[in-house]
């Protein structure tokens, strides 16, 4: 939805104060340039028949009036920014490792100078020793290009490292949303609490008693009545089974829970 592929079913979507949800034609193309994506699987998201150079130049060919030489210059300078060497310009994706492919995908996303990059699990397919390199690269680029990331991940230690604000989703709905410190230090939604306690850690000192959830996430096609989490929630009451809790502000964050005032 943020990438303007699906229209929102309700509400509004604004970029820099301008309504984007129903934009059409030239306006829509303008907004699309502001939002680019990096996908999880760098083996599936790069066209195997295109060389790195043409992968990076394609967004410019479609969206700008730059000449071929200008596009090549822009692509080569972006390769330097993401840590690719100039001779890589004429290579194909299969000649690269997973981490380098993710660098290509990141470079492609930045070619149009977007304001927002939607990164869907960008490091979860990478070798552990490469994951830190790519996270560092993302942090450096955020600073130099003044980017906002919408970083989708299930590895909470990665989220804790990279995020400023955290939005916890359960079954397609917001469970809890606030600044990172509030979510990690003092969660108010039982799903957030369970997630945090289920996350394994290498530090024996901070290994706490797990809240092991029973059951599995229900199908999003057939969500339960009331709160989507009620069947797995240790604190569920009749109210939770009957009525879907609306997100509201409690203790400095947005939380969708009937009993958000309770700490447990």
């Amino acid at each position: 939805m943020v990438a303007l592929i699906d229209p929102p079913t309700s509400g509004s979507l604004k970029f820099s104060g301008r309504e984007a949800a129903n934009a059409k034609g030239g306006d829509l193309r303008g907004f699309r340039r502001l939002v680019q994506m990096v996908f999880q699987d760098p083996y599936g998201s790069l066209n195997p028949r295109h060389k790195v150079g043409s992968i990076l130049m394609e967004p410019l060919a479609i969206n700008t009036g730059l000449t071929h030489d200008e596009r090549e210059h822009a692509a080569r300078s972006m390769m330097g920014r993401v840590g690719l060497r100039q001779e890589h310009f004429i290579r194909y994706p299969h000649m690269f490792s997973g981490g380098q492919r993710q660098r290509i995908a990141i470079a492609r996303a930045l070619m149009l100078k977007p304001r927002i990059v939607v990164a869907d699990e960008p490091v979860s397919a990478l070798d552990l020793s490469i994951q830190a390199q790519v996270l560092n690269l993302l942090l450096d680029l955020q600073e130099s290009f003044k980017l906002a990331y919408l970083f989708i991940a299930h590895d909470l230690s990665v989220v804790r490292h990279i995020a400023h604000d955290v939005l916890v989703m359960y079954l397609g709905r917001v469970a809890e949303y606030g600044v990172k410190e509030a979510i990690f230090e003092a969660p108010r939604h039982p799903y957030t609490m369970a997630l945090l306690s289920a996350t394994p850690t290498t530090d024996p000192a901070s290994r706490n008693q797990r809240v092991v959830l029973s059951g599995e996430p229900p199908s999003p096609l057939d969500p339960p009545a009331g709160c989507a989490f009620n069947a797995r929630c240790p604190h569920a009451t009749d109210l939770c089974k009957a009525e879907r809790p609306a997100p509201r502000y409690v203790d400095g964050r947005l939380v969708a829970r009937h009993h958000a005032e309770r700490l447990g």
Partner: protein
Amino acid sequence: MNGARPLAAARAIELRGRVGIAAPESRLSAFPHQLSGGMNQRVMIAMAIACRPRLLIADEPTSALDVTVRAQILDLLLELRREEGMALILITHNMAVVAETAQRVIVMYAGQAAEESPADLILSRPRHPYTAALLAALPERASGQRRLPAIPGLVPGALDRPEGCMFNPRCALAAERCRRETPPELEADDGRVRCHTPLIGVRP
């Protein structure tokens, strides 16, 4: 198990109950696409333990699962290990999963065992520079610093293995000898390490 179909069916139901599948009788006729990822992984585990193995090898058994379901599956594997009295080899790249489940750990690099130690020792006092660098690069150990201490370079491919120690091009401590000689495997009372200059002492 040949011959007795009713017996096999009964055992299948028993096994599915054993791995925590609710209503095992009715689930016996379900197809895999009708079950969730966590349920399918439970079925896989039930198949694996059907003939009461002495050793169960689990290759990244939880990497594809939701975090809350991952905890359930790890707990199930540990419970089966205890109750069935079988050994468990867990292959994973998730150091936190290692920390919570393993007793002994072998760290592999480029197809070789770099280090073997008891799990608590490997996490607190790694011997091999690769293990130490891996642990330092974990976001959860970054303790407030913005940039992670990443390991430079790439894992060598099968055809471009370096001379000497496999890890020498990426190792912060690599010396001349590491670039020339393959390190021997040094034995200690509680483990072994393949390194010319291990981080904590090992008797030769």
